[in-house]
């Protein structure tokens, strides 16, 4: 275990190395580039490769290739780069390729304010790719969470054979904080299931555990098939409704059914509260301060900071805010994740508190907006 004052971006890089990262491919983009630069310096010392590709499209496709050579692989980017990666994320979904994307959000749309924060891409992170499925999205609000959730992101990607997005923003990226860095041996590190069957019996897309198939890699002698077309368990193209249904539901269920297992949050004062604040990422820090200010004024306000944004654990969230009469969803965008929460908290009044700020939304501003509703 080590303790250091580091930024969110450094925490991601450090944690990735501990998780067993062996291949990083990227294209520079603010505010994610220092993850890349840090790894370029440190990862080779651990026997890993760091390569700057010609664009984000090449980067994500290389990450997929590296993962199929059985290296733990990742990239980091921001909105414009993530947009370029979307087609390949869909490929990673259908081919069930474990990989991690650190998505350091900046202000958009388009080039926006590249150096400053926002939470505009929270829906895009899981819904952006074509094909109508979901990928896990974890959201960090501090360098410590960035560290812990990076390890978790690798574990989830290996366990479920899926791309995982680790969502942060420009504020977390460059804020220093004390980080307790647990090392290998002090952490759970999950590796993908490898085939137990001999090559002639192996089917690359046959689930062996909770919808997840075992993964053979290039060079293992298994004649693996990485197939972007709709495929059966052998990986053979099969343009049939029965095959499509089976594949879609398995890919969907393997993520959605693991929602309870992936659920990660911190709650303050939710028990017996009248009002609940729900937030995530850097904005959650402001929300917690705002809640404290209101508690000091005598309001019973609790806060729920979500660290797992997708898959959504509906029962878990419902239970946590069950005593609240009103739920406020505080975020630094036009009110996006609010839509998700409104859909699952149907029996409550759910209020969107969208505060657009190039830095952290000010707690005082949150209090002022919320007060109209108390």
């Amino acid at each position: 275990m080590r303790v250091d004052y580091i930024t969110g971006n450094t925490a991601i890089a450090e944690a990735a190395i501990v998780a067993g990262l062996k291949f990083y491919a990227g294209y520079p983009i603010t505010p994610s580039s220092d993850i890349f630069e840090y790894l370029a310096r440190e990862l080779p010392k651990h026997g890993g490769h760091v390569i700057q590709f010609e664009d984000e499209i090449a980067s994500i496709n290389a990450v997929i290739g590296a993962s199929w050579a059985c290296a733990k692989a990742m990239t980091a980017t921001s909105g414009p780069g993530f947009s370029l990666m979307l087609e390949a994320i869909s490929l990673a979904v259908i081919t069930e390729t474990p990989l991690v994307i650190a998505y350091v959000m900046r202000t958009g749309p388009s080039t926006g304010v590249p150096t400053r924060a926002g939470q505009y891409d929270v829906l895009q992170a899981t819904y952006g790719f074509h094909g109508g499925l979901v990928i896990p999205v974890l959201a960090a609000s501090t360098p410590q969470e960035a560290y812990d959730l990076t390890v978790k992101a690798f574990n989830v990607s290996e366990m479920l054979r899926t791309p995982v997005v680790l969502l942060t923003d420009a504020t977390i990226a460059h804020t220093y904080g004390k980080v307790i860095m647990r090392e290998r041996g002090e952490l759970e590190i999950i590796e993908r299931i490898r085939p137990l069957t001999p090559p002639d019996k192996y089917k690359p897309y046959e689930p062996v555990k909770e919808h997840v198939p075992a993964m053979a890699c290039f060079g293992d002698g298994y004649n693996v098939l990485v197939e972007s077309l709709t495929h059966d368990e052998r990986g053979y193209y099969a343009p049939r409704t029965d095959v499509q249904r089976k594949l879609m539901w398995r890919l969907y269920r393997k993520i959605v059914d693991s929602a309870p297992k992936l659920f990660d949050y911190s709650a303050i004062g939710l028990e017996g509260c009248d009002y609940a604040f729900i937030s995530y990422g850097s904005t959650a820090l402001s929300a917690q301060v705002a809640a404290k200010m209101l508690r000091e004024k005598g309001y019973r306000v609790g806060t729920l900071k979500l660290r797992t944004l997708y898959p959504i654990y509906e029962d878990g969230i419902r239970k946590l805010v069950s005593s609240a009469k009103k739920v406020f969803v505080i975020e630094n965008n036009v009110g996006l994740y609010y839509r998700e929460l409104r859909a699952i908290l149907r029996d409550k009044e759910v209020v969107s508190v969208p505060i657009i700020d190039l830095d952290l939304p000010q707690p005082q501003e949150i209090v002022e907006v919320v007060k109209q509703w108390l």
Partner: protein
Amino acid sequence: MAVAHPLDKYLRTDRIPTMWCPGCGLGIVMGTLLRAVDRRIKEGSLKRENVGFAGGIGCTARMTLYPLFDSAHVIHGRAIPFALAVKIVKPEMKMIVVGGDGDLAAIGGNHILHAIRRNADLLVVMVNNMIYGMTGGQVAPTTPRGLYTTTTPYGNPEREMNMIKLTAALGANYVARGSITHPQLLEQYLYKALGKRGLAFVEVISTCPELFGRHIGFRSPVDLYMEIRKRIVIKAKPSIEESDYSWEKGFVIGEFVDRDEPGFTDTIYEYLNKIRGGGVQ
């Protein structure tokens, strides 16, 4: 099961017949490529489990569906970064990228550019059938000027993209152009390309009788084949300049570049070893 064909051992025979149209040149490309691989495996210069295929999307890229090797059928234009990453992580692999002219020269153009600049250790086989086959006969960057395609119904006004010139200019270790009309020569190029370090690029002039041939007036696959054959010019040592083609001028085939610069993989492992050995801080 009786062995029906000497290459059956390299094929997922349960997937044959292929999806290709009758008379398509792609069968010849695949057969020739597998024969070249077979020669390498037999002579012991290549291990079967170390051969991997990657293709994007297109009729050509579907060639990845049939060989009984590690194989990836990824997305349109992106097979090169996939294959390059496999090669970096597992340098013992021999990665073969197969793709159409749309897959590799149009949408994947940026990747081939940089793969060559890096002298990435890949064999890239680009099938030039002068058309987008899979999507129904639209113009390709390689379509000869003047010819009809479904998206240039008044004739293609654009210049032909000469990938030989491009790959030679950027420093590939091996650059050759073959044709399905001359499979023995093609096999020789592919065999040689498989033995190279760095980037080996082989362009294959091929036929799409269905959506190129028929559209420009050749009613049968044989007619198109004979027409292309007529326009092939074999040269023992052609110059790079001679690689420019047009429908009227025809297509010069041969070996344009053969050199032996260090490949990308060797170079990055050299760095990696230095760093790990403390040579670089």
